[in-house]
């Protein structure tokens, strides 16, 4: 399915999702992407520059891409374990469909930055804070953005 990946990658070059830029991590490996995300405005991530690695499995599109945040981000749906795994919604193996596209996946990632899904969190404490103490969540997330997501 290299052809599809090539096509998707090319499409993302000409028409990248908002706030995003998609590159290959290494020039000759079509299956490993690095996505640079400008923190969407009106979010605590605004002003930050986030790097996300997107690894397309060999079985792609029959298996979902693997999204790893290389930049530390304070987010209920991103694991805070050094891997920065984000795996929810249709990015899950069980919910992925081969007709899903990377453009949609990336748009979904961006959407999650704008609106986390605390009820499907990998970090319940952050989710709890997001739900019950939004102000504090914003504060910490902003702090992390300043600290870790320097442009």
């Amino acid at each position, binding site marked *: *399915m290299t*052809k*599809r990946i090539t*096509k*998707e990658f090319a499409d993302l070059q000409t028409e990248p999702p908002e706030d995003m830029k998609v590159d290959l991590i290494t020039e000759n490996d079509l299956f490993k992407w690095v996505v640079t995300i400008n923190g969407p405005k009106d979010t605590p991530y605004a002003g930050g520059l986030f790097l996300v690695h997107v690894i397309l499995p060999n079985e792609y*599109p*029959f*298996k*979902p891409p*693997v*999204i*790893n945040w290389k930049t530390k981000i304070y987010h209920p749906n991103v*694991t*805070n*374990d*050094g*891997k920065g*795994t*984000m*795996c*929810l*919604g*249709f990015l*899950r*193996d*069980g*919910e*992925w*469909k*081969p*007709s*899903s*596209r990377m*453009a*949609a996946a990336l*748009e*979904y990632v961006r*959407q*999650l930055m704008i*609106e*986390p*899904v605390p*009820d*499907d*969190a*990998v*970090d*319940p*404490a*952050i*989710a*709890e804070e997001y739900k019950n103490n939004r102000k504090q969540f914003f504060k*910490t997330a902003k702090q992390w953005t300043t600290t870790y997501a320097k442009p």
Partner: protein
Amino acid sequence: MSGQPGRPDAEMLFCHQCENEWRGNPTALRCPHCDSEFVEVVENGRNPRDDPTADETGLSSNSLAHHPLHNIHPWAHGPPNSEDGNIEHVEWNAGPGIRFSRTSYRSSSPHGGFPGDRGNDPIASLLQNMFDTMQQPGMPRAGIPRGSNAMQNPFSQPHQQAPWPWQPHAHPFPERQNHHPGYGGRNTYTSTTRLWPSPPSSTNHGNNHLQDLLQALFQGMDHTTGSNGAEAGPHVGSGGFPGLHQFFASVLNPANAAHGDVVYSQEALDRIISQFMEQHNGSSAPGPASPAAISALPTKKVDEELLGSDGKAECSVCMDNVELGDEVTLLPCQHWFHGDCIGAWLKEHDTCPHCRQGIMPKDPPSNGEATSPRAPGQEPRNSLPPLSPGADPGPGGFHFRYQSGNGHGAGPTTTFRSQQDLPIPRPRTERRRSSASRSSGGRNGGEGSSGGGGIGGAIGGWVRNHLGGGDRSSGR
């Protein structure tokens, strides 16, 4: 270190009784060591024992007036080459009328003693006995290094405090091992004094006392630690005992809070759960369709109706355009794909990539698995009907599945799409799925563990929620 000029009024003195050698006032011709008066003023360049190394020793002792320890490494000039030439000499003024002196000898035997003064010097004898004891392999070392310091403290300069039994900087063993592994207790002793120029900081005494006590304890428990005392010593002063410290560090460090099957933090628990989940390649997705049914799927030629209004269409699996006349495979839900593309998918998951309805009939024939796909009107085994049946959500659509069944399509399911639905609570899905897995068992029991990347993290979160954890405040 012998480059400093000697005190002008000091002469090199030599006691022929105990072969003590020291630098001091020639008017007091009495050996401070054995109290003998058989003392010779040694003229410059002459060795009372006609030994060249002794001469060097004497010269180096010129610095004694400035620092009593400057000459304690006589072998810096080379290895001793005769029995009576191996002289070490330390002398100092401790105040008016008080003078300490130490002369010692090395013999060629590793445990060589004090041939000249053993019988006369109780301190030296004591030291010798002590260090001889320390040489014994397997001797517990607890307290002994400190004891040696206690013994060396008479060398302390007068203004310094009373002898401090646990002076932290003295670690005789490495010195001895590094420089003169073959020599006996004598070397240990002098090496110890060599470290003395680091005076104990009076402000640290309280801490050092306790720490060194404990460290001596640890050294007693661990021989290796003891013999690495020179390395460990300074660290002790700055606060810790390697073993205990490492233990607590590993316990308290969230990145490392797991030992085997034991975890010490929520993060570690999550990681283990994630790992566990990742090891199981199961999936909550429906299982495969039967190969026979896949190959029995009908095909059709691409026509204008299929291409639609814009006259273009593509297989949504490979994203290649299809042309008029191409052959595509039709699913019971009427969605079409390249035969190879949909076959590759269906042999993994019996769902339509668009509408998630499977091709297998819900009720298999009594003689086993269906060998042909269901008829379009027949209920699918795996069904996840979209909001508007048959509609293709399109590549940008988001599907959020609320599943009240156990994944077999037995219960009512609903699929939401569109981005507005993103924040809709989803843990219900997780919880239901998990509880369904437990209660229903069967195939889905194994599939409850969704494979892949961070799914385990999500389920870890679920476990956390249910175990009532979730307080990260300690982690930040």
